């Protein structure tokens, strides 16, 4: 085809450059001006898959039931660190209904994330995979697990972050337990600290947060001859396919991965899991489909988490400005090979002239981290934004005013690139108005009773969200004028099908209800992982171009059929419109066969000279019972600057959800591990406390809603992560305003509030 080019793009995130190649053709479209009135874009549209979701007909991986399907369960290490010496499976195999057992001594090699096998010799946390059983039903498989005899050689362990960084801790790797994970120095922080008027210094802690996606991780695998189909609850069907390829060494053409609906991921479902490999191996061996899904308990041991952090933040101020910053962070990565960076916001959010930041990855015998909605940024913002409030108070400057002084810059301080669009100051203005910032008093105000104190606080958010290539889409016309839009992305609950349908509809001139969106299948065009707030900004522009391509082709065909020049035709609401005539597109399409018009679109690279970021600010009002330590969050105002809003209703849902999940992190969610046993004591939904409906405050959602026209052809950016980032810090600042006490450990439970209040009394 004419005009196909390959372009290399370089996208920066957290100082790392990600390079990718993408195939583009023709030309990109310019983003619409802010003033354009759309038919679909910018309109609150109900979800196109709403009926499936409310009737229980939506098929999640958990719901896939195939004829003859077996059920696999995983035996997990009961010890935080041990060597697997021997495994005896005779009794398990003798149990009626058991079809197979896999473990390190009999399993085929299957590489997994840099390791040779999915069953390690040295198991490194409670929950690490030791063996697996496939049986006629899950109940039998579970019983069989109890009959497997394993000989373990116990090894010294450490699960706690602060214990792991001490000299006396068992060394888990040759290089010890602590690894550099990035640092940054800007300006002359040492001198700036020396000449400061005011210095504040604090140690902050954030506890381990568990994703607890309601649908646990899991997969169903089925072989048909040499072809493998895997249904997996995943944020990245193509990533799962690649993981399976690497493990089983199959050609990609023989692997198909499907994720129709998925019950939440929040970052934890980024790639293939051991359960997918186990299901695939069993299915091959036993010649039957195999389902392997995690129990809630397993989910909370072995499916990832937001690392606990220990952070030290020191700020210096002079003449009403922040003059120096020192931020060091240690993160409990468990057995993870990477770590999120809590100093990310410190490095990029404000125009700090002088700073030093350091981030360390700490390995322990606990479940590995995985990305959790704005990994690192939630934790880092909790510390940084509290320190700024503390400095503001010390200097006698209004905390919002202090931030304004450092938030106006239109240049990314890290790369010095100009922002494609930044309207953070406007977020401040909107938020301050909505919360009534002028009513904020130093020292807080009296609440609904003498022992209840009310306070207001705020915090700022920065995140990526610009998306980028590669991402592709196709748009097919059927002979009845209906349309099939395909993209290899997946809907993790954000409403992807709906917003893609809106974008397609807008460009194509065909109503949403005539467009079927097919996603979550590696048989479709490649789509990136649905994470990092990049789905809409990556896939959306490709969809728009695919729709344009389909429209142009269709109009070309229509010109022939109607015998009118193509330049005189346009498509509008399912009609071909020419001077004075409206012809339903089915009039034309019925003369063509199915799928003879196939539009293709790809995501063009981002402008290299610009930094594309999202911004926002949250304002919180709290009431604190100073005698019981109860924090009641009364109101959260969430203002975000994420470019154009494609669907205000689903966008608002995202923000509410982010705020609520953040309130869990702020107030009640905390993995509890018994250090000597190495056991997670609350790997359940009883003592691991996610917010209930009664924990939800009034949430006011506002957007600046200005298209970021230099970012991509939609002017839209991502929204998944931004709303979870600043809430906890805003609440903590409000609590400090209310009570005069700073809570430096999230979650801010009644116990911690009372403890902090007791110190001042």
């Amino acid at each position: 085809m004419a005009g196909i080019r390959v372009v290399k793009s370089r996208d920066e995130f957290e100082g790392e450059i990600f390079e990718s190649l993408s195939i583009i053709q023709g030309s990109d479209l310019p983003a619409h001006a802010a003033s354009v009135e759309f038919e679909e874009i910018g309109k609150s549209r109900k979800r196109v898959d709403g009926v499936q979701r409310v009737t229980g007909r939506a098929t999640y991986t958990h719901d896939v039931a195939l004829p003859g399907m077996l059920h696999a369960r995983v035996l997990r290490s009961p010890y935080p660190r041990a060597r697997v010496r021997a495994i005896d499976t005779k009794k398990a195999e003798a149990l009626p209904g058991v079809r197979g057992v896999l473990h390190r001594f009999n399993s085929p090699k299957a590489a997994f994330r840099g390791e040779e096998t999915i069953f390690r010799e040295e198991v490194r946390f409670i929950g690490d995979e030791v063996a697996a059983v496939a049986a006629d039903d899950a109940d039998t498989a579970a019983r069989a697990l109890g009959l497997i005899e394993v000989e373990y050689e116990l090894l010294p362990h450490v699960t706690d972050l602060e214990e792991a960084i001490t000299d006396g801790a068992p060394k888990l790797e040759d290089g010890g337990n602590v690894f550099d994970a990035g640092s940054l120095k800007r300006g002359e922080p040492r001198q700036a600290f020396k000449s400061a008027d005011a210095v504040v210094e604090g140690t902050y802690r954030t506890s381990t947060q568990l994703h607890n996606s309601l649908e646990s991780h899991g997969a169903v695998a089925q072989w048909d001859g040499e072809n493998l189909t895997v249904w997996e609850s995943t944020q990245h069907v193509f990533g799962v396919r690649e993981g399976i390829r690497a493990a089983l060494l199959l050609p990609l053409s023989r692997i198909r991965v499907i994720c129709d609906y998925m019950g939440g991921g929040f970052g934890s479902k980024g790639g293939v899991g051991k359960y997918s490999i186990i299901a695939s191996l069993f299915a091959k061996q036993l010649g039957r489909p195999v389902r392997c899904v995690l129990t809630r308990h397993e989910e909370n041991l072995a499916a990832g988490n937001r690392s606990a952090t220990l952070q030290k933040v020191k700020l210096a101020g002079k003449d009403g400005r922040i003059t120096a910053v020192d931020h060091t962070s240690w993160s409990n990565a468990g057995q993870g090979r990477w770590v999120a960076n809590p100093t990310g916001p410190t490095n990029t959010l404000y125009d700090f002239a002088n700073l030093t930041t350091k981030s360390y990855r700490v390995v322990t015998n606990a479940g590995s981290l995985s990305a959790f909605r704005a990994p690192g940024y939630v934790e880092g913002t909790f510390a940084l934004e509290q320190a700024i409030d503390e400095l503001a108070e010390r200097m006698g400057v209004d905390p919002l005013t202090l931030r304004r002084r450092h938030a106006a810059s239109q240049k990314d301080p890290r790369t010095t690139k100009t922002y494609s669009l930044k309207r953070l100051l406007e977020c401040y203005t909107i938020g301050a108005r909505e919360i009534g910032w002028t009513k904020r008093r130093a020292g807080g105000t009296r609440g609904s009773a003498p022992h209840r104190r009310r306070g207001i606080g705020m915090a700022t958010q920065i995140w990526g969200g610009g998306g980028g290539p590669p991402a592709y889409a196709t748009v097919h016309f059927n002979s009845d004028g209906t349309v099939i839009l395909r993209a290899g992305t997946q809907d993790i609950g954000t409403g992807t099908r709906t917003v893609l349908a809106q974008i397609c509809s807008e460009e194509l001139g065909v109503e949403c209800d005539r467009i079927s969106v097919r996603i979550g299948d590696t048989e479709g065009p490649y789509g990136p992982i649905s994470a990092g707030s990049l789905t809409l900004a990556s896939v959306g522009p490709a969809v728009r171009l695919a729709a344009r391509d389909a429209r142009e082709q269709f109009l070309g065909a229509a010109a022939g059929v109607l015998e009118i020049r193509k330049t005189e035709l346009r498509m509008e609401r399912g009609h071909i419109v020419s001077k004075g005539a409206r012809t339903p597109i089915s009039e034309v399409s019925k003369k063509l066969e199915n799928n003879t018009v196939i539009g293709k679109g790809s995501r063009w690279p981002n402008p290299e000279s610009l930094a594309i970021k999202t911004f926002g600010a949250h304002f919180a009002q709290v009431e604190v019972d100073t005698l019981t330590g109860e924090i009641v969050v009364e109101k959260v105002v969430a203002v975000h600057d994420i470019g154009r809003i494609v669907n205000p209703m689903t966008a608002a849902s995202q923000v509410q959800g982010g705020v609520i999940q953040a309130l869990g992190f702020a107030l009640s969610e905390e993995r509890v591990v018994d250090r000597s046993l190495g056991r997670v004591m609350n790997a359940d939904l009883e003592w691991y406390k996610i917010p209930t409906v009664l924990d939800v405050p009034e949430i006011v959602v506002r957007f600046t809603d200005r298209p970021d026209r230099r970012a991509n052809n939609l002017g839209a950016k991502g929204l998944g992560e931004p709303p979870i980032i600043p809430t906890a810090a805003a609440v903590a600042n409000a609590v400090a305003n209310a009570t005069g006490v700073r809570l430096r450990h999230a979650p801010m439970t009644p116990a911690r509030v009372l403890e902090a209040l007791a110190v001042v009394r």
Partner: protein
Amino acid sequence: MLDTIGEMPPFRGPEAVDIFLTVNGQGATAHLPPHRSLLELLRGPLGLTGTKLVCNAGNCGACTVLVEGRPVYSCITLAVACEGKRVETIEGISKDGELHPVQEAFIDHDAYQCGFCTPGQVMSIVALLRAKGGAPTEDEMRRAVTGNLCRCGAYVNIVKAGMSAARRKK
């Protein structure tokens, strides 16, 4: 002395036993051992996968169904204990292909994100609206779904949808 009238009922099981019950208005039969849950019965032999398994411990509400009209957690309800009872699931509340007002309202108000808790939320609200003659207060609506966790945090819209369905129903 205590009453000793009545025949000694036989213990059934522990092997699979026949269980007869009414599911969504129709008689249903299953053959399951007594330790299996109502949820397993629904999702397995009956193929009603709209009801979800999340915690399997009565801690989340994704498995909420109505037994004799009242919302319960099917994951910790023994199937055998539902012998002869009326069970209603998400698959049973829309009639003749028409959505229940609560389902409609969930769509209108975007009262879900991933949708995994949705069937349970809907069942709790359906039960509330049936139990309340008049319109419930917003507090009653909230309390009706305190036993249904939503990890995506769709609560604001769930309550809105419930209140809107209550108005619609009148």
